[in-house]
């Protein structure tokens, strides 16, 4: 399936693959109403007025994002970089790198977050991406190879409770480690306030940044109307441990959520949040 996507992206113009993928996204949404309602409930955490059409639009946009994902994966890094035409706050990353440190880059299931790996490696920053295992080993390997074309490593965090030691080692070596935060994990769930409800983030990794004394840098990668991407790198956050673990996680998760909310509110169609994240 992924090989087919890559093959199509190699031979067809991007506008054609986007249109095709958008069509299939719409078709998927129309034939999977239960899944669409999950997305709708997530969107309603931002704004109660989001209806089914908003949720279906997420699938349409996701199709376009997949088309872009395959497009950049089948081009040279220099060619792929042309899809990002506006970068804001990159100086934060350079400054951290010059200080000899790594950083924990936190983002959400928003836009084409994988482009962040390309941006970092093409800017001369050592980068690694944290991922959960994909449904199959073959897909996990495929995606790791995909990222490695840009020299971005993949660190798979499965059920191993000590995977954090490997991540800590990379952070201490000066690697920029990227992770997604806006989804709960069975053993890691912190409530955050969104404009119209409470969501759960998996924020435990923020404690690792504190332990390794590296900053946390929130970032987003959003597709604009013209099809190019806007990378936004926010000010680094230095995690200071509070009186309890849960207080630390709540405070900083909220701080990060508050940065993401305006971006999410402006681009709800690019919030690819396909599992329920409302806090029960």
């Amino acid at each position, binding site marked *: 399936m992924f090989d087919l996507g890559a093959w199509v992206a190699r031979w067809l113009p991007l506008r054609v693959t986007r249109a095709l993928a958008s069509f299939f996204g719409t078709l998927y949404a129309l034939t999977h109403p239960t899944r669409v309602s999950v997305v709708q409930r997530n969107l309603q955490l931002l704004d109660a007025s989001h209806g089914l059409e908003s949720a279906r639009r997420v699938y349409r946009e996701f199709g376009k994002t997949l088309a872009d994902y395959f497009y950049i994966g089948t081009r040279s890094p220099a060619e792929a970089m042309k899809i990002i035409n506006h970068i804001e706050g990159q100086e934060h990353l350079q400054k951290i790198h010059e200080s000899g440190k790594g950083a924990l880059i936190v983002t959400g299931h928003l836009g084409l977050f994988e482009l962040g790996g390309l941006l970092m490696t093409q800017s001369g920053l050592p980068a690694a991406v944290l991922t959960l295992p994909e449904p199959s080993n073959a897909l996990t390997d495929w995606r790791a190879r995909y990222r490695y074309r840009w020299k971005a490593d993949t660190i798979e965090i499965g059920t*191993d*409770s*000590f*995977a*954090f*030691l*490997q991540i*800590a*080692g990379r952070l201490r070596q000066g690697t920029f480690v990227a992770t997604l935060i806006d989804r709960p994990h069975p*053993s*890691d769930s912190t409530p955050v306030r969104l404009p119209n409800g409470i969501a759960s983030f998996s924020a*435990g990794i923020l*404690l*690792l940044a504190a*332990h390794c004394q590296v900053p946390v840098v929130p970032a987003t990668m959003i597709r604009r109307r013209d099809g190019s991407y806007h990378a936004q790198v926010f000010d680094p956050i230095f995690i200071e441990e509070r009186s309890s*673990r849960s207080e630390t996680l709540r405070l900083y998760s909220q701080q990060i959520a508050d940065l993401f909310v305006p971006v999410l509110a402006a681009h709800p169609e690019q919030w690819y949040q396909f599992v329920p994240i409302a806090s029960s």
Partner: protein
Amino acid sequence: MTTIHLDDLRKLLVDNCMLRVAPEEIQMETTLFGPGSLGLDSIDALQLTVGIEKSYGVAIKDPAAAKEAFQSVQTLQQWLTRQQESKLSA
């Protein structure tokens, strides 16, 4: 010979982990992860390594060594004792 007592380890666990059992229920043979254990998760593991570094001045960097040391309270005691002794003899 460095001695690390059960009470020291209980305090270490209570201070750093979200325990679902009373401290006095923790025994040497109590396992830390998995079914029938203290039920620690990866965040507890992280906090525990931080706590060990603060209290005993030893850092765990190797996941395989951590897995071995953190099997049970007893293996943790044995590992800490070895680390303390090698620090003293260095």
